[in-house]
Each structure stands twice: as C-alpha cells, then as structure tokens.
C-alpha cells in the first residue's frame, strides 16, 4: 500500500517535523506566496552571503505536500549558490517528493520553489 500512495512515510515525517521551520532575524531575502484556492500559505527567509544561501527558514500553513516539499527542498538549497538555485527545475522538486507531473497536487509541491524564487527576485 505504501508503494501506491503519495504519502510515503518520509513525506509524513517531513510534514509532522519539518526541517528549517521558523524565521530568520537576519534574513537578506524574504517572500510570501500562497495558493489561495487551496489554503496553502508559505513564507521563506533566506540568508545569502557572497552569493551562497547560508541559511533558509520557512513558515507555512497548509497541506502536508506543500510543507513536506519545502522541508525537503530547504535541506537541498542550503549551501547552494544563487546561480544553482536559478537552474533548479520544477521537475527536480517534484522528484524530491516522488510526484508525477500529472498529479493534481503539483501546485502544492511547487509552492516551495516558487516562494524561494520570489524571495530571490
């Protein structure tokens, strides 16, 4: 049954105990984004030093997919350069959570990377 569900244990774990959840006092970049129709809201805080993401925190209210994805993505992005993040593709984000591009929940998952992109604008 685990095989057939989007909600694998690691997703549930990231949802219940998201990594890098919180805010940053010394954030250099910040943005809020939401999927209003779903009720997903996300705020990301980045600390960028010499073009590299030194720290990233996020606050979110919404579905498990949006929070779990951001939690997983945050671990990947910390230590990346801005150039590397700019090249980070949507498909890679979906791959993190094991989601097909045809899934009805793609918007929920991509809220993560879209918030980061917004912050880096």
């Amino acid at each position, binding site marked *: 049954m685990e095989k*057939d569900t*989007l909600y694998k244990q690691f997703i549930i774990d990231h949802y219940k105990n998201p990594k890098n959840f919180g805010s940053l006092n010394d954030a250099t970049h910040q943005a809020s984004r939401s999927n209003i129709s*779903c*009720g*997903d809201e996300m705020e990301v805080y980045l600390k960028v030093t010499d073009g590299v993401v030194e720290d990233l925190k996020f606050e979110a209210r*919404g*579905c*498990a997919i949006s929070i779990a994805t951001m939690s997983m993505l945050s671990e990947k992005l910390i230590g990346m350069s801005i150039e590397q993040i700019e090249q980070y593709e949507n498909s890679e984000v979906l791959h993190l959570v094991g989601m097909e591009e045809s899934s*009805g929940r793609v918007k*929920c998952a991509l809220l993560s990377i879209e918030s980061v992109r917004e912050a880096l604008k």
Partner: protein
Amino acid sequence: MDKLREHFPILDIEVNQSPLIYFDNAATSQKPTRVIDAISRYYRESNSNVHRSVHTLAGESTRLYEEAHQVVAKYIGAKESEVFFTRNCTEGINFVANVLADSHFEEGDVIVLTEMEHHSNIVPWQILARKKNLKLEWIPVVGDNCSLDLEYLHFLTRKYREKIKLITFVHTSNVLGVTNDVDQIVRLAKSVGALTLLDGAQSVAHQKVDVKKLDVDFFVFSGHKMYGPTGIGVVYGRQEILESVEPWHGGGEMISKVWKTGAEWADPPQKFEAGTPNIGGGVGLMSAVKWINKHIDFERSCDHEALLVKMAVAGMGVNPRITLLGPKSPESRGSVVSFGVKDLHPHDLATLLDERGIAIRAGYHCAQPLHDKFQFGPSARISFMPYNTVEEVRTFLRSLNEILRKF
C-alpha cells in the same frame, strides 16, 4: 436506487484500482446513457445550424433546439418566451447584472445578497457595484441550522426602502446544503419594489421548481449539475422584464433586421441568444429533463439522499477530530456534508481518498466569504445524487477512519 446506477456507465469505472465512489456531485453530476446518446445522436444524424436554412437538416436541428426550450420552460413552470439558454448558471447571473445595469440601477442604489453565496453570485455584483457606485449589503447566516437572518433583511428594507433594487440569494447552498425560504424573501423584496434573482444551481437537481410559485423575477441554473452536459445553462426572466431590457450580447440570431445604422431585436427569448448556440448542449439538457421526468421521483430521491447524509453525519460526528460545517440537523443538509479534520488539510484528505477511488471536493467550494464567516479554513465536501449508495457511504467512512488512524 440500484436500478438507477445502470443508467450511469461511469459509475462502473475503477480509479487507482478501486471502484469509483463519486461524491463530488455538487461540482457536477454524472450523465445517464440516454443524455450521452442523445447528444451523440444529434451530431450523428441531425447536426446543422439552427434557424438559418430551409434545408431538411436545418429544420430538424431547429425543431430539436426549439423543443429543448419548450421542455425546459415547462419543467420549471415558465412560458417559452421567458426562458433562454446560456453557457451556464454563472453566465446567466452575469447576464442579469449586465442588462439591469443601466435600466434599473443608479448611483447609491443597493443590492442585497447573502453570506452563503457562491462566488458566481457575488463577483458579478461586485463588478456592477464598482461600475455604478452601488452598495452591497449581506444577509447574515445565523443559528444552529444556518438560516438567513430575515430580521436583518427586514431591517435593510426599512433602512434603504426603494433604494434596494435587487435581492439575490441561493436556493440551496453548495456548502451548507440548506435550502432557503424563498417566499418570505420575495415578499420583503416586493414590499420595497426590488427585483429578485434566485440561484438554482444546486436546487434544480433535487427538487421540482416552479418559477411562478416561487414568484421570483429571475431564476438561473446550469444543465451540468442536473444530469445534463456542461456548456449549457438556463435563465428564466419574467416576461415584462425581458421585453423591457436591452440585450447583452449582440450578433446573429438575436436580431430580426440589420442595416448599417442599426438593428431591430428579435423577441425574447431569441433576443438573448446571440450567435450559434450550444445546440448539442440544448439537446442534452432536454434529454436530461426528459430522463428526470421518467426516472426520478424527487420525494424518494430526497429521502434517499437524506439517509446518506444522516449516515455520513453520524459516522463522522463521533470522531472528535472532525468538525462538520453547516446545520446541526442533518435533515437541513440536503445532499451535502462539508467538514474539516484537525491536523489534516482537506487537500491531503482528498488525495488520500482519491488513492482509494473516492472523489470528494476540497477547498472553499467557491464560497470564501462563507468560510471566512465561520472562520473555517478550506473544507472537505461530499455531495450525493440518488445514484450514490449506502454501501458507498460505508466504504467512505471506513476509508476515512483508516486514513485518520494513520495521520
């Protein structure tokens, strides 16, 4: 009710290796074979443009399309001249907003709506209010059974008197399931000379509607929620009003004569159907009405839906993590149950149920102001039609409990 399911081939499909349990009927209903076949047969045997030619096929399609108008008008107790087809209920409401804009409203006038309205019966009025500098007033939803506060409406009529030009409200709420008392609101509207527009999107599928008995000035609905295809809706407008207003959409079909400097309008209802209409949709809608007349006994089907609602409410009510949104008494819920689950977002619940073949709706159901009023975030919603079964509700409850144990 099992015999009813035989009419709906889609109910036999599997979704994610489980039998489909379709509980999203308030979004759109499934269609009986008869309706699907009628549309298909029209395109296979009778397709031609309406009203335009004298050849046989054109005569056939015109006859069918006109028959569709007669059948639908009769179904809601209206005269043929008072009923025309649109794309959907939303377009019908936009029609009313547009044709009444200049003839009925001036700066400072008031439109009364309610907290339980669907966005389609809110946004067109917001647009109109901005354009013409009008005021919107909202009848609150009150009490354990989520009724409209008619005392407040009374207060509004005393406060604004003839400045209230329109009172518009939903017949049956797509979130709460409640059906509103039309008579009292119509009486209050008439007392100040206001027009009434009743949104019948959810009600037409579950009860017999007689627009003359309801005595409203406008009644709008979509075909696709009442076993018909998408892309076809209906506006009923009182004859005197339709004769007096200018058309909204101009073009072919709605004119009798056109010259360089002007045009003469066709009579209602033709006056309000510009361009080539959704002929296939009209044929489908007619077929849906005929199917309902033959196979649905509204009293029995409502009793059945009430049973399903009661089961669902009882099954969910015992779980402390589940909060039901809507009236306390299950009987007031019609065929809809909206709810929230603690620590489980409705989108996640909807996906988890989908993985088990169960289709529900999650979000605001195009009723954000209603959710705001109850300070309810997005909700989950199950909605029934007579082809849903007791067994399906049992499976749903079982699946829900399984999911809640895991999450």
